[in-house]
């Protein structure tokens, strides 16, 4: 076994163990962050959705922080979901 093959093997093993032990936790951490983002976007962009939660002045001040999340937020919101999504 060459040095490179050895490295590749250990990398694969490490990833496999991570997948079994911690990948779930990482995904749920991301889901929690996504829920927070949804709330943040709702608060800052409530006007557009017809829910005026924050005065426009503050919404505009916060807008630069929201913009990077808008594209992924839109994808999450527009996706068709059903109950079985709760299993994964």
């Amino acid at each position: 076994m060459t040095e490179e093959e050895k490295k590749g093997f250990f990398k694969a093993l490490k990833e496999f163990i991570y997948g079994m032990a911690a990948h779930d936790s990482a995904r749920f951490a991301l889901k929690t962050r996504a829920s927070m983002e949804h709330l943040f976007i709702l608060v800052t962009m409530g006007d557009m959705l017809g829910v005026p939660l924050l005065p426009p002045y503050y919404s505009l001040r916060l807008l630069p922080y929201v913009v990077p999340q808008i594209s992924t937020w839109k994808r999450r919101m527009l996706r068709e979901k059903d109950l079985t999504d709760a299993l994964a």
Partner: protein
Amino acid sequence: MNALLLIVGALAVAVLGYRFYAGFIDQKVIEADPNRMTPARMYMDGVDFMPTPKNVLFGYQFKSIAGAGPVVGAIIALQWGWLPALLWLFLGVFFIGWVHDYVSGMVAMRNDGLSLGALAYRYISPRARLILLAFIYFYLLLLAGAFGGVIAGALVKLTSGPVAILILALAGALAGQMIYRWRVNVLLMTVICVGLAFLGIKIGEFLTADKILGTVAQSKFTWALFAIIFCFTSAVLPIWRFALPLNYVAFYVVMFGLVGGILGIIFGLPPVQAPAYNQFVIGIGPLWPILFVTIACGAISGWHSMVSTCGTCRQLEKETDAKPVLAGAMFTEMVLAVVALMTAAAAIPFSQYQEMMKPGGPGAGAVFATGLSNLMHIIGLPLAFGKTVGVVIIVVLALTVMQLVLRFMKVATIELVGDYHPLLRNGTVATFIAAVLTLFLVQTGWWQFLWILFGGANQLLSSLALMVASAWLLSQGKRATFTIIPMWFMFITTIAALLYTSYNLLSKVFAGQVKAAAGQSLLEATIGNGLMGIVALFLVVAACFLLADGLKALKRLRPESGAGMMAAAK
């Protein structure tokens, strides 16, 4: 016959199936293309859809599909003899199991990562989705009940388990606190919490449940309630607080036990003590069709289609990763099921096994723990320690799935009946309803019948997933024989198994011949048998509706029909 030889045989089947059959389907039929855009890349949202390395996903898929299912099913099936169980594992995974996991994942991947319900809506009929979701609800209820029964049986017999599990739960909660609140280094947290979990196993050996609870520890109800309270707590708390860190810490204990067991087989070379073939009809029914639903995970399981569609396929970076991840994990699970079969067939005398599997006996969980401790004893670990490790493993594997199921049922209850009363929209109330229903099933039913019903629902789900996959293959103008034949086999076998079990249960109820198991009243047994019989009938009716819609869809899409010709032309 030597146990190691059978495990080597399992590895050979896995390699052959993966290399040749899976390779052929992947390349020639599905035509996996590494350059085609996958949902993970196309819809990357940083949460559900995210390109992930295939080795990580292989671990994730394997961990998600290999719970208590492959362990318990194989052990129950030993009652027919090890050969029928082994043959079903080999042939089932080779011709059906991996096809099911892989194709359901590929269908979802080629359809923007849609879930199974949405795929049924698209390819079968609009009502198929609703029926499927109701079906899944009952299936998960049975799953929770069956696993609850396994836990209760194991903890009655192995009293060193409860304290060890409680300490493991504390270690899990501590892990959550350390990682998410105190921001401790992951390695340090792992060392402290896993160390605490093993210390708990050692303490459990001395501080047994009967010393603390006296005769209460002898009641299955006590441990069923214990499992339900455990899962209820886990389902209502934030997932990072308890469920996830507990699973993380438990992973090391499970791996320790499994590696110990495999090393025991390698170094001890134990001969198989169980007969190759015992008898055609056992307490739960005849070999056909009951064996084919008793062993679900390890051969084929509908649960995997949900994991493949909603979880894994949304993270696959390339289409060509689907074969190693989805098919590879299924073949590996089969090897795990064979190892579990050997813990019962080779590590304990068959007479002791039969005694433990009798109605009212401790059941498959205790068999696994005892067998595993005997195997670990070969490599020098004390028997009492090994037994506690074994019971912790089986309980943790079952609890992991039960927690997930209760969490899902909380969401499902809110979605399905939340509009009828505001109280039903409350998460705690919805979880409580699911927990009570589960406890009711565990307390009133005999766990082996519950297992058959769970297996039946599971296998029906797999045949429905294969039906959706067949409809998709036909709609793409591809060959579908390799999914249609397994679909029919699974459908006919499972319907026969459910009807047989339902008749068995209901005929006893109507003839007044129900016998109560140990620790169960006659009324409980009668209600349990009646309820299980009715649930089995419901599953059959729901599956028949889905089949009727599915057949219409398949007819519409067959190559000689208009839609089929259009698909072929595409």
